[in-house]
């Protein structure tokens, strides 16, 4: 039965691709190798199995993807885009889309994204973070908000209800923190970076009413930031070892190896926690939106067209065609077939019967609920990576105890922000 379903699904995909290919192939005549720089994603690895399909669609083009982890990918794309421009397609994210767009390093995607591929089908939240200055700059490969994932068995054994407020959440992690039994209350991100420790700190900052800027004036250096930092540092006392200088990998690794009771992380965590191949606690978890007043960290990563390597309109069209194909409904359906939960971005796929059949109705509901509290927590500005990374270092110093005065750290950041705004004008 499963084989039959797979066969039907394959035929459907082949037919869909054949029909879209016929309309696009007439326009596209790409023969060069499209060079892509990205961070590792299962969905991209899966694409490499279908190179022939893209060659047929494009008129003979090939593609080559170079992978780097998140921090290195950010550094490398910035260096490449501002200097030699070797890559036709850049993997960018919500944190640096403003920088890439403002600097002219990427081209407006809508001008080169074939209409047949239906960009409007992407999750609206992801479209929002891919947009800067009224234009869309990347097609999403992953994205979403936050979910609180918890160990049902541990909470039930301790007689604790899944927390819905921050106070309940803090009380629960304190009660469930038993290092002598190898169980830690939670796992935060301590590693420096706008996309690392700052990313997990921002829901507290925004949840307590903080704001980054009022026009060009920094306004973050206030009670909300102090309270958010103090709360973050307090919760860190119950965070798993290794997380003090760790990021997403360390936090999620600690949870899926069964050593963490409650974890608030980006939504792809659920897919990993539910996968028995990646998680030792796959049958013991529950999930809810983050406890109030925390906001979810809305994010999106995706593919954008580089301007330096694609000097001609034809080259940009080829890069656009590759991005459209890579993020197409058909390829997303393949990711669903492979159980790549975190790589799903299209409304049509996430609301499909097949998605509900695979992940159950609860997850769909949790994702819908968390969508209501998902927000853009960062400063949507080309200078955000500078500011976020600087705060990341100060925050890491506070977490690891090399500095202790929260207000002094925020004052230092305030001075940096004022200088940053002056330099960028």
């Amino acid at each position, binding site marked *: 039965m499963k084989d039959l379903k797979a066969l039907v699904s394959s035929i459907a995909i082949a037919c869909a691709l054949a029909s879209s290919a016929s309309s696009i192939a007439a326009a596209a005549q790409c023969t060069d190798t499209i060079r892509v720089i990205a961070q590792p994603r299962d969905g991209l690895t899966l694409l490499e199995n279908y190179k022939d399909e893209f060659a047929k669609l494009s008129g003979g083009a090939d593609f080559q993807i170079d992978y780097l982890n998140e921090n290195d990918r950010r550094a490398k794309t910035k260096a490449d885009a501002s*200097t030699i421009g070797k890559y036709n397609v850049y993997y960018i994210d919500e944190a640096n889309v403003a920088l890439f767009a403002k600097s002219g390093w990427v081209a407006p995607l809508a001008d080169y994204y074939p209409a047949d591929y239906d960009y409007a089908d992407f999750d609206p939240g992801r479209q929002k973070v891919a947009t800067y200055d009224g234009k869309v700059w990347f097609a999403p490969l992953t994205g979403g908000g936050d979910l609180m994932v918890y160990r049902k068995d541990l909470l039930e054994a301790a007689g604790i209800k899944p927390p819905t407020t921050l106070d309940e959440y803090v009380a629960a992690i304190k009660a469930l923190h038993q290092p002598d039994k190898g169980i830690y209350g939670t796992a935060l991100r301590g*590693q420096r970076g706008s996309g690392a420790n700052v990313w997990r700190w921002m829901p507290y900052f925004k949840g307590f009413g903080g704001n980054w800027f009022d026009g060009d004036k920094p306004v973050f250096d206030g009670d909300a930031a102090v309270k958010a930092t103090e709360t973050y540092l307090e919760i860190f006392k119950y965070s798993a070892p*290794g997380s003090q200088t760790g990021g997403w990998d360390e936090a999620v690794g600690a949870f899926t190896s069964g050593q963490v009771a409650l974890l608030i992380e980006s939504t792809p965590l659920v897919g990993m926690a539910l996968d028995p191949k990646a998680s030792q606690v796959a049958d013991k978890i529950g999930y809810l939106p983050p406890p109030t007043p925390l906001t979810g960290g809305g994010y999106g990563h995706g593919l954008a067209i580089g301007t330096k390597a694609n000097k001609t309109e034809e080259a940009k069209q080829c890069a656009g065609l590759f991005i459209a194909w890579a993020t197409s409904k058909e390829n997303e359906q393949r990711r669903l077939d492979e159980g790549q939960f975190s790589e799903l971005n299209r409304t049509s796929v996430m609301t499909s019967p097949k998605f509900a059949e695979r992940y159950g109705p609860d997850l769909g509901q949790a994702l819908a609920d968390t969508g209501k509290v998902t927000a853009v927590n960062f400063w949507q500005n080309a200078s955000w990576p*500078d500011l976020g990374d600087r705060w990341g270092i100060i925050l890491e*110093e506070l977490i*690891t105890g090399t500095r202790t005065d929260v207000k002094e750290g925020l004052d230092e950041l305030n001075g940096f922000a004022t200088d940053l705004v002056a330099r960028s004008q």
Partner: protein
Amino acid sequence: MKNKSTLPWVFLTPAMVVLAVLALVPTVCAIVISFEDRELSRPDGNFVGFDNYLALFSDRRFVNAITVSLSWEVITVGFTMLIAVGLGILLFECVSPRTRKILALLFIVPVVLPRVSAAFVWKFAFHPLYGIATYPYKAITGQPLDLLSNPLTALGTVALVDVWQWGLFFSVIVLKLLETLPPQPFEAARLDHARTWEVYTYVALPMLKAPLISLAFVKMIESLRAFDLIYVMTRGGPGISTETLDMYAFSQGFIESGRISYASGMAVLMMIATSLAFTVIWKRAKI
């Protein structure tokens, strides 16, 4: 006679041209850029004189990076040489020639490993929950040991990996140097009832002064290029406790701010400081 005076130039010129292109051009570019306010996100820059240099000395991270870099040099060079000499003598004195060959082969393996691979292997080994190096401590005390997250131990832990790579390799070189020494001075010292440590302190090591100083210089230069090891293991953290000058310059130039002029200022200062320091040390060493 004429041929004799022109021949050195015939050989030197191609090498000097290659050196000029590969070394001089980037160096001059770095110096020029350091007097501007260029950033990666802006194609043009303005001349700002010594602003970048003046800003550096009021930058606490730059001052911290100088301290970390100096500490790194002293720790890694010092311990590498100590391990190299100690282990080299131990192998020479206590191990049979056949076993020495096997051990020498094993001791060369760490330095042959790519630096990044070695860094990843040790990073996992030091993981507080799953690491093999921290497992005994966890098994005995029941508490995890997080060496790379502790500002007091992080630099020393990374330095341990560096010393593991180079100390073992240098010990093989010291062993081979000892094997090349003539046996007569050793026999004479022993006839005069010198103890073993006296034989090495007053006879063998003074005879090896020149190659040992050369080894120390090689290690000093190598330690300046430890970016990859530190970057993989700590990324300069926790906080800024392992952030060396080259790491901070890279961070300012490409990771955080894209301030390439500011980063170039740091690179130029590093170049001047290392050239001066190495010249002074080389002159004083009097090989």
